[in-house]
C-alpha cells in the first residue's frame, strides 16, 4: 500500500475515533459520528467535483492543488495526459512528414482498400488522374478511371507489371499505373507520367523503320552490280574471290535489313495477331523439305506431327517463327547431328518444339538470347551469316499470339526451343471439320 493510501486510511480512522470519543463525552455517539462522516463525505465530494471540472477543461485550466490521495490521483492523470499529448504530437508530426514526403514525390500515389475503394491520394495523383480531394474518398477507383485497359488490368489481377493508359483529361498524356499490395489487404496505386518515354520509344521505332527502308534501295543496287560483275568472264580471276565475298556480305546485309523491317513492322502492329486458320502440318512439312534441299544440313531432320489441329493467327508471322527456329537449329548442328521438330496439342494449348544436337548455349546467355543483335559467340555467328534478329522476331511474333517461348539448353549437348500457344489460338476440331 502506498504511503498516501496509508495516510488517508489513518486519517479516516483517526477522524472516526475522535468523533466516537467526543460523542462518548457528549453522550451523542451516533450523531457526532454521522456529522463527522458527513463532513468527510462532503469534503471528498467537493474534491471529486473539482477533479471532474478540471478534467473537463484540462486544456485551459491549471490542475487543482490537492494533497494526499487526491493529489496523487491528479498527478497520475497529469502524467497520463502529458504522455498522451507527447505521443499525439509525435504522430501528427510523423503524419505531416509523410504527407510532405508523398507530396514531394514525383509519382502519384493512391491508397486503396481491398475493395479498391480510394482511401487517400497525394497531390500528384489528384493532378494526373483528375481526382478530387475528400469527394472521391471511398469511391471505387475503377469508377473514376474507366479506361477499359485499366479495368482489364484490375480484373486480371497480375500486378507484376504496370499498365499504360491514356489520360482521360488529356489524350496526349500517357500514364503508367501499377498496383502494389501492402498491409492487410490494402493496395497502393502508383501513377507515373510516361508521355516522354512513350514518345521517345515511338521515335526510336520510327527511326529504325525509316533507316531500314532507306538502306534497302541502295543495297539492292550494290548487290545487283556485284552479281553482274561476278558473272562477267572478262574480269581478272584474281577478283573472283573478293567479288564472291562482296556478294556474301551484301546478302547478309540484306538479310539484316529485311529482319529489321520485319521487326519494326511487328512492333508497329498493335494488339493481338489476326485469326487466320494456319495449317501447321503443311507448313512444317514444307519447311523440312526446304532444309533438306540445303547444301549442308544435319543428317537427320525428323518431323513428328502428333496433332492435326490448326492454329489461329497470322500465317506470315507463324511461318517466320517456325522458319527462324528451324533454321537456327540447322545452322548450329553439325552434319552428323540430328534435328527433331514436333507439333502437339494438349489441355493447355498447342506446342511446337525444335530440338537439336548442336553446340548448345551456356546458361548465362539464356536470359539475353532474345535481345536484338545479342551474340553468344560473335565470331561464329558472323561466319554462319545470321542477322542476329531471328529470336527477337520470334519473341515479338509469339507475343502477338499470346504465346511464350521456352529455351532449354546444355552446352555441347544441344538445345530445345519450345513455343507454347494458348488454347484460344488452337482451332477446335469442330471448326476444323467445318473448314475441311
Amino acid at each position, binding site marked *: 500500500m502506498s504511503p498516501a493510501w496509508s495516510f488517508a486510511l489513518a486519517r479516516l480512522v483517526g477522524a472516526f475515533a475522535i468523533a466516537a470519543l467526543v460523542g462518548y463525552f457528549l453522550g451523542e455517539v451516533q450523531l457526532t459520528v454521522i456529522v463527522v462522516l458527513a463532513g468527510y463525505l462532503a469534503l471528498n465530494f467537493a474534491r471529486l467535483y473539482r477533479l471532474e471540472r478540471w478534467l473537463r477543461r484540462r486544456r485551459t485550466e491549471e490542475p487543482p492543488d490537492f494533497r494526499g490521495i487526491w493529489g496523487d490521483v491528479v498527478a497520475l492523470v497529469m502524467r497520463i495526459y502529458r504522455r498522451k499529448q507527447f505521443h499525439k504530437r509525435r504522430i501528427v508530426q510523423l503524419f505531416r512528414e509523410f504527407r510532405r514526403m508523398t507530396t514531394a514525390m514525383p509519382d502519384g500515389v493512391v491508397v486503396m482498400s481491398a475493395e479498391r*475503394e480510394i482511401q487517400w491520394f497525394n497531390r500528384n495523383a489528384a493532378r494526373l488522374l483528375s481526382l*478530387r480531394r475528400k*469527394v*472521391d474518398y*471511398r*469511391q*471505387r477507383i*475503377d*469508377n*473514376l478511371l*474507366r*479506361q*477499359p485497359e485499366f*479495368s482489364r488490368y484490375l480484373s486480371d489481377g497480375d500486378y507484376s507489371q504496370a499498365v499504360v493508359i*491514356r489520360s*482521360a483529361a488529356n*489524350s496526349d498524356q500517357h500514364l503508367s499505373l501499377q498496383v502494389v499490395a501492402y498491409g492487410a489487404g490494402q493496395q497502393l496505386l502508383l501513377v507515373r507520367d510516361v508521355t516522354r518515354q512513350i514518345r521517345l520509344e515511338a521515335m526510336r521505332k520510327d527511326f529504325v523503320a525509316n533507316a531500314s527502308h532507306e538502306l534497302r534501295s541502295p543495297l539492292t543496287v550494290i548487290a545487283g552490280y556485284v552479281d553482274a560483275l561476278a558473272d562477267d568472264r572478262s574480269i581478272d580471276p584474281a577478283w573472283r574471290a573478293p567479288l564472291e565475298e562482296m556478294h556474301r556480305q551484301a546478302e547478309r546485309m540484306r538479310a539484316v535489313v529485311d529482319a529489321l523491317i520485319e521487326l519494326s513492322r511487328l512492333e508497329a502492329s498493335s494488339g493481338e495477331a489476326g485469326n487466320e486458320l494456319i495449317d501447321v502440318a503443311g507448313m512444317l512439312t514444307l519447311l523440312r523439305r526446304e532444309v533438306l534441299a540445303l547444301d549442308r544440313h544435319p543428317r537427320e531432320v525428323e518431323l513428328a506431327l502428333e496433332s492435326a489441329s490448326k492454329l489461329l493467327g497470322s500465317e506470315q508471322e507463324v511461318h517466320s517463327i517456325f522458319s527462324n527456329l528451324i533454321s537456327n537449329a540447322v545452322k548450329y548442328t553439325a552434319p552428323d547431328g540430328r534435328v527433331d521438330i514436333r507439333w502437339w496439342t494438349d489441355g493447355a494449348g498447342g506446342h511446337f518444339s525444335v530440338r537439336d544436337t548442336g553446340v548448345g548455349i551456356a546458361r548465362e546467355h539464356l536470359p539475353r538470347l532474345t535481345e536484338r543483335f545479342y551474340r553468344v559467340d560473335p565470331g561464329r555467328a558472323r561466319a554462319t551469316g545470321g542477322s542476329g534478329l531471328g529470336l527477337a522476331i520470334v519473341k515479338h511474333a509469339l507475343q502477338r499470339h499470346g504465346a511464350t517461348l521456352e529455351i532449354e539448353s546444355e552446352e555441347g549437348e544441344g538445345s530445345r526451343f519450345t513455343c507454347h500457344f494458348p488454347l484460344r489460338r488452337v482451332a477446335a476440331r469442330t471448326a476444323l471439320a467445318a473448314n475441311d
Partner: protein
Amino acid sequence: MDVTELGPHISRRFNEDLEGVRNRVLQMGGFVEQQLTQAVAALIEGDSRLGEEVARGDHKVNAMEVTIDEECSRILATRAPAASDLRLIVAIIKTITDLERIGDEAEKIAYIASRLATMERPADRYREIKHLGRLAQQMVHDGLDAFARLDADAALRICREDRVLDDEFESIQRQCITFMMEDPRTIRRALDVVWVARALERIGDHAKNMCEYVVYMVHGKDIRHTSLDDVEKELRAAGRS
C-alpha cells in the same frame, strides 16, 4: 450527399447488388468513351483500320446494355427497391440507353472515318471536327464522372455546355454549305463531315440526358424539358428550406 451512402439496408447483398450494377454502368461508360475517342481519332488520322475496329466493337456495347438491363430487372423484381435505390435503378436503366446510343453514334463516325480514309484529306485536317469531338468526349467523360460522384452541381454545369456543342455544329454546317457551293466536287465529303458533326452533336444531347438523370437520382427531380435557370432556382430554394 455522400456517394457511398445509398441508404441503410438490412441486407448487405442488396447493397452489393446496387454497387455492382453501378460499377458495370461505369465500365460500360469507360468502353463507350474509348469507342468515341478512337472513332474521332480514326477520322482525323485517316486510319481506316482503327475505324473498322471501332465499328466492330459496337456489339460489345450492346451486349453490356442487355446485361445491365437484365440485372436491373432482376433487382426490381426480387428486391423491390424504394426511394433513392429505386431512383438509382431507374436512372441506370435510362443512362445505359443513352450510353448505347452514344456507342451507335461512335460506330457511325467510325464507318464514315474508314470510308473517308481512302479519300484525300482536307487542308485543315478536320480541325473543326477535332474541336467538336473534343467537346463531346469531355461532356461524356464529365457526365460519367458526375454519375460516379453523384454530383448534381457538376451535372447541371455539363447540361449548360450542350449549348456550346449545338453552336459549333451550326457553324460546321454553315461552313460545309459554303464549301459545297464553292466546289460541287466536295459535296460528297462535306456531307459526310456534316454527318459526323451531327453524330457528335447528338452525343452531346445524350450526355446531357445522362446528366439529367444524375440530378433526378440525387434530388428526385425530373428536370427534362425545363429551363436550366428555373431548375437551379428551384434546387437552391429546396436546399435552403
